[in-house]
């Protein structure tokens, strides 16, 4: 870590603090469900702007049920095969509380094509762009696609790096198990 310009730091912090004053109260997103999963890593909460408007807040999404977070890109060939399977998973289980979130890891070269790409594949789930790579870093994603299934209590229940035809079925089984478990153990 090198030397930093204190004046610039203070200026940056001041500007940011000024903006934070205008910020409203944080959303209430604490999950109220408990499920019996083995102790595993907890998914870091995040907020991302969806390309269709609105905010994707993991804590809020988890309050509704399990969440699938898929890191993909328009240039990634396996992603092209995986996304339709995720879309079918979304169509089958959205009403049961599952949320699928597509996080595009495209660079500025492709920002203007991400919505078109999602439209071409008729994706019904929300898509966001991780413009500054902060989410990739937070989840330590090193290959694409990488998919996380996050339980309502915030624990990562299932992970997959890469995609092979048929992987969607394994994810569907994990989702089904989680939905069943949640249904049994959830305390309203």
């Amino acid at each position, binding site marked *: 870590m090198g030397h930093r*310009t204190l004046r*610039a730091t203070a200026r*940056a912090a001041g500007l*940011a603090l000024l903006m934070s004053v205008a910020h409203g109260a944080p959303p209430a997103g604490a999950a109220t469900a408990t499920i019996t999963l083995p102790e595993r890593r907890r998914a870091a909460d995040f907020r991302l702007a969806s390309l269709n408007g609105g905010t994707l807040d993991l804590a809020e999404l988890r309050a509704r049920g399990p969440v699938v977070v898929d890191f993909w890109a328009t*240039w990634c060939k396996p992603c092209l095969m995986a996304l339709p399977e995720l879309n079918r998973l979304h169509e089958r289980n959205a009403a049961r509380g599952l949320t699928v979130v597509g996080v595009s890891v495209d660079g500025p070269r492709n920002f203007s094509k991400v*919505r078109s790409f999602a439209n071409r594949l008729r994706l019904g789930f929300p898509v966001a762009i991780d413009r500054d790579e902060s989410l990739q870093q937070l989840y330590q994603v*090193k290959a694409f696609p990488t998919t996380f299934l996050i339980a309502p209590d915030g624990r990562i229940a299932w992970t997959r790096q890469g995609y092979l035809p048929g992987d969607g079925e394994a994810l569907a089984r994990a989702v089904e198990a989680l939905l069943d478990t949640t249904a049994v153990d959830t305390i309203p």
Partner: protein
Amino acid sequence: MIVAEARAQVTVSNIVEAQAGNRPFAEFFGQPTNPTSIYDELNAELALSGVRLGFRYESLDNSRQTNTYRTFTQRYADWTASGLHVRVGDFYTILGRGLTMRAFELPGVVLQDAVTGRRSSFSRELDGVRVDADGRFGSVRAFSAQDASSTQSGGQAMLGPWRGAGVGATYVRLSSGAGGANSQEFGSGFVQWDPSQTWSGAPVALPLYAEYAQANRSASEWWRFERGDAVPHALYVGSEALWGPFALSAEWKDYRDFRTGINDPPSLVREHAFPLPNRATHVLNAVSEHGVQLEGSWAVPDWGTVTVNHSRADGTPSGRALHFEESYFETHLAAARWPTVEATLFFDRDIDTFVQIAGREIYGVSLTGRFLGPWSSTLDLEKLDAERSAVFGPSIGFTDQVATLQVARSGWGTLAYLWQRTTDPDEEDPDLFGGDVEPRVYRAWNASALIGQSHTVQLFVGERRGGPACTAGTCYEVAPFKGAELRLISRF
């Protein structure tokens, strides 16, 4: 019942890559043969109630004991609370669409120097402090960083009180020399608007983004939107139109003397997933380039997709008029009637005098079939015919061919055989210089296996063709290699 929050958590990811083999023609170039090396990239992070502490540690060891290193290449502390995010140490960031600033990495990409063999992660981070604040009416991002030779500082402010609309500005200052004697300033203004968000229920989505940047000019000069050759500038406009199964994206660029070393403006060139068009892509020259890109797609219900793309650019980076133009067609067939079979066909035609390509055609097909439940097989066939202008004498024609056959089992991994052949004289065996060009053939086996949910192991055995490759919009050089390479990617 409220689930108890984890008090502290450590997250670790690791990439280890071991090589045993040679740079092709090592003996010819007088280099040691059969070296072995091992590269490791370790990322670790401790998260504790809104605070995260992390580092990246990289190391390279080899049998020659040259260019070896073991060092922390990133360290950071991160604090997040209710719309405010502060990071001290190494960080990435982007301002606007990257016209004035983009610090980033290509996750999973390990660069290798073709001559020295030195390997490292592809990372262009800044070292300093970054502050982000998101509010109801907009957002602010500010940073200050320093490296061995210069100081970079700047930020972005965006006002967006209206749903789907926003207006903002970015500013970057680079200082170097004693007391910051040498400095450059870059500034941009941008506007974005998505009418379908402003008026919900609109049948057509039409998001629009426009950004204009200048270098070393005052704010009053910025307003003139000058785009002459004498004014360093960058103009980017992008829009999409989405209507039912149809989508159209249109982009326009005009860059002049805007290759700053810390920016990454959109190139307006299609990024291809297939190997041959991916390595043959046009690389943006922001010194002088203006042009457009149009891409249209149609999602054919129960059949697949059709995509067409056309891009062109002109420029005079060295005083001579240069031209790039590419047309691309792709159809992806995934019929609902035959769910176990998928096929993609593509055709690409381009001319790129920026790199002396007088004409080039690439076509290919990819077929995937599923059988016996979790098993699947993919066959890729591609061919490239190109003509390269020569400084003296007639132009040179060459052909590239690629064939890949992969067998995969869901949950286990893959086994693939890769075959490439080229008649490009630039890649001819140096022992065979003179006379007719002898084709080069590259053969390799590639296997990958999943070990639980935390590890992926990949084994490459054979000869890898060197040259350009693009990942996540960024192009870089892949070093040629002949031998065996074992890679293990882990996440805990």
